């Protein structure tokens, strides 16, 4: 299994990445890390620069060619590969073919645990009152909603409380967060208010980009809220 750490994951969430590694090795999976990897090209693609995104997509294909599974701690980046690479390589039959093979093998981390390994209960224990942020690309484009919840529901002493509006975007949206900072912040505020209303002290997510955004806003507002990647909760919960 090859880990796709993603650029934000590499830079800002190395612990979440290591949590993924430890959990998978704990489950007996052999983890490799293709060193040449960089970024999936999503920032370019979403900002309207398909050629630039294509350059990164080509690089991605070269780096991950031959991997039996590709697992990423970011639902959004996994969805980029699966959902948009076919469009990027629409007129490039050879790469389109390789994309098709790869997109059948790329998984978001919790999806991989639940759908491929069939693991829903890691025997973890993590005392907290937590709520889960459902990220948009992961649910709507990748179609992964249940796996992280199932894993979290099986964590002992973790009280999982639902949000009133789980489906609302946190407001990150890549370059949207700097092109429309006021609206982006207003969206984060609505999400954080929703979280605060549940009385949760821990916010869990499966996408570094959303977490970075929400953590940044929560810190500016001095909210006493802990924000963690789902892999971190699980790894700490099993004592890894």
């Amino acid at each position, binding site marked *: 299994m090859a880990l796709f*750490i993603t*650029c934000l994951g*590499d*830079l*800002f*969430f*190395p*612990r979440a*990445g*290591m949590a993924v*590694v430890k959990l998978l090795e704990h489950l007996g999976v052999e983890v490799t*890390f293709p*060193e*040449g*990897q*960089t*970024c999936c*090209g999503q*920032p*370019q693609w*979403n*900002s*309207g*620069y*398909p050629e*630039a995104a294509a*350059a*990164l997509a080509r*690089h991605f294909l070269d780096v991950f060619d031959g991997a039996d599974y590709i697992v990423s701690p970011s639902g959004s980046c996994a969805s980029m590969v699966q959902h948009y690479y076919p469009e990027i390589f629409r007129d490039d039959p050879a790469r389109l073919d390789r994309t098709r093979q790869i997109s059948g093998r790329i998984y978001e981390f919790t999806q991989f645990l639940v759908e491929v390994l069939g693991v829903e209960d890691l025997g973890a224990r993590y005392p907290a009152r937590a709520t889960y942020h459902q990220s*948009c*690309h992961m649910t*709507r*484009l990748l179609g992964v909603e249940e796996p992280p919840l199932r894993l979290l529901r099986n964590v002992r002493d973790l009280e999982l409380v639902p949000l009133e509006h789980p*489906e*609302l*975007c946190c*407001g*990150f*949206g890549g*370059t*949207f*967060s*700097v*092109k*429309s*900072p*006021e*609206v*982006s*912040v*207003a969206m*984060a505020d*609505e999400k954080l208010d929703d979280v605060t209303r549940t009385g949760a002290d821990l916010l869990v997510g499966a996408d570094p980009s959303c977490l*970075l*955004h929400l*953590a*940044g*806003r929560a*810190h*500016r507002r001095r909210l006493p809220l802990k924000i963690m990647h789902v892999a971190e909760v699980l790894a700490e919960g099993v004592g890894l």
Partner: protein
Amino acid sequence: MAGGTFRARARKALENPRLRRAVRVTMNNFMSARRAAMAELAQLAREGLALGDFAAMRERARAIKQHTLDHLDHYLARAATAIGERGGHVHFAAGAHEVGEIVREIARRRGVTLAVKSKSMATEEVHLNRALQADGIEVVETDLGEYIIQLAGETPSHIVGPAIHKTREEIAQLFGRVVGRELSTDTPTLTGVARQVLREKFVRAGMGISGANFVVAETGTLCIVTNEGNGRLVTSAPPVHVAVVGIEKLVPTLADLYVFLGLLARSSTGQKISVYTHMITGPRRPGEADGPEELHVIFLDAGRSDILGTEYQEVLHCIRCGACLNHCPVYRQTGGHAYGAVYSGPVGTVLTPLLGEFRDWKDLPAEACSLCAACWEACPVGIPLHDLILKHRQKTAREGLDQSGLGGPLRLGAAAWTKPWAYRLSVRVGRLALRWFAREEEGGRRWAVKAPGPLRAWTEGRDLPAPPEKSFRELWAEHLRERGQRA
């Protein structure tokens, strides 16, 4: 073109807590009503009492729309013939100017001095009221929401609920001005006033103007869906009825119409079907008690045929249900006026730059969307609005209109990041820079409260955590060493 940019208008809306509360409450109501309606539809489908659940219905609706648009000439001709055979008059208008001319000509011939209107986005789009008022014709909006914003001198802020941004207090003030006394803010009083004022207009009006939600090509039937009785009065009380309809509103047969009616209200307000669904086929026939003497249907192009056959064609599937607005997190924060155009929300973000001058509206796709795709999920005809917004962004970049300052860095970054060494180098430099800017220490982590360059906008409202001591790559290298020792 609207004044200013989306960002500026949005900022203004964000500073208006009353507006934001009003929009949010209505959106919440629409969202939960839709959710319930969809669950019920799924149940009906399981019992064999509906054509299918939402997903199945939306596939059918999409297929019908695609077929109709692929053969639009044929269905337009068919509809024109059918309407003519039943005694109606058909006109084709290339744009706003033609619509104005056609309606004014009819009004002049019939000596119309007062026209009543029922809610219609197409007439908003071509600013028909202005054209008629220029001829000294009084035009009165009779949909309650439209009437409110007409009094306020505003444009609709939502496709389905044009006045959702208004509070009761504001409405009481507006109505109070009309009747010259102070009004209480309860619903019966307010609707009572509107009814009393509008009834008199219905009686006197020489012309009724409406849109149409659908036109059935086979029979020439106009289908108008409303929740108020005003639509029925507008289309039947005055001696002349003029319907202004976008050419994309055609559906081939009555059976097709059934599919859309099952989706429209459910997606929009969560109702099974709207309170009134009028089917109008031709003017009053001899011996009939009511209906207009004269019926005109104006098919409006106004940029629509230019969209046919392009990568944007699917936006013409839109049945104006408003579900994409209701589910859009950006709309939810700003309301419709931030979009500066007749159509707001995700569909407006796609449609407005296509119907108008692209360069004037490029900030909508650039700034009014976080690409969360909630609109696509809610859309009853499955328009991939988020992908069409991406296509707009591509066009903006292609034509050199991207003024965000991000194009250069993004392209440069992509070129560099196809080389692992350059990626590693830039990440290292980025780490150092960010750690240097992140000087505020708290909770064991350092935060940047003011970042330079393109990240400045980020730190206007958010802090940026300093990257941790070690990157993943470094941790991984350590891990490999440990693993080697263990083995």
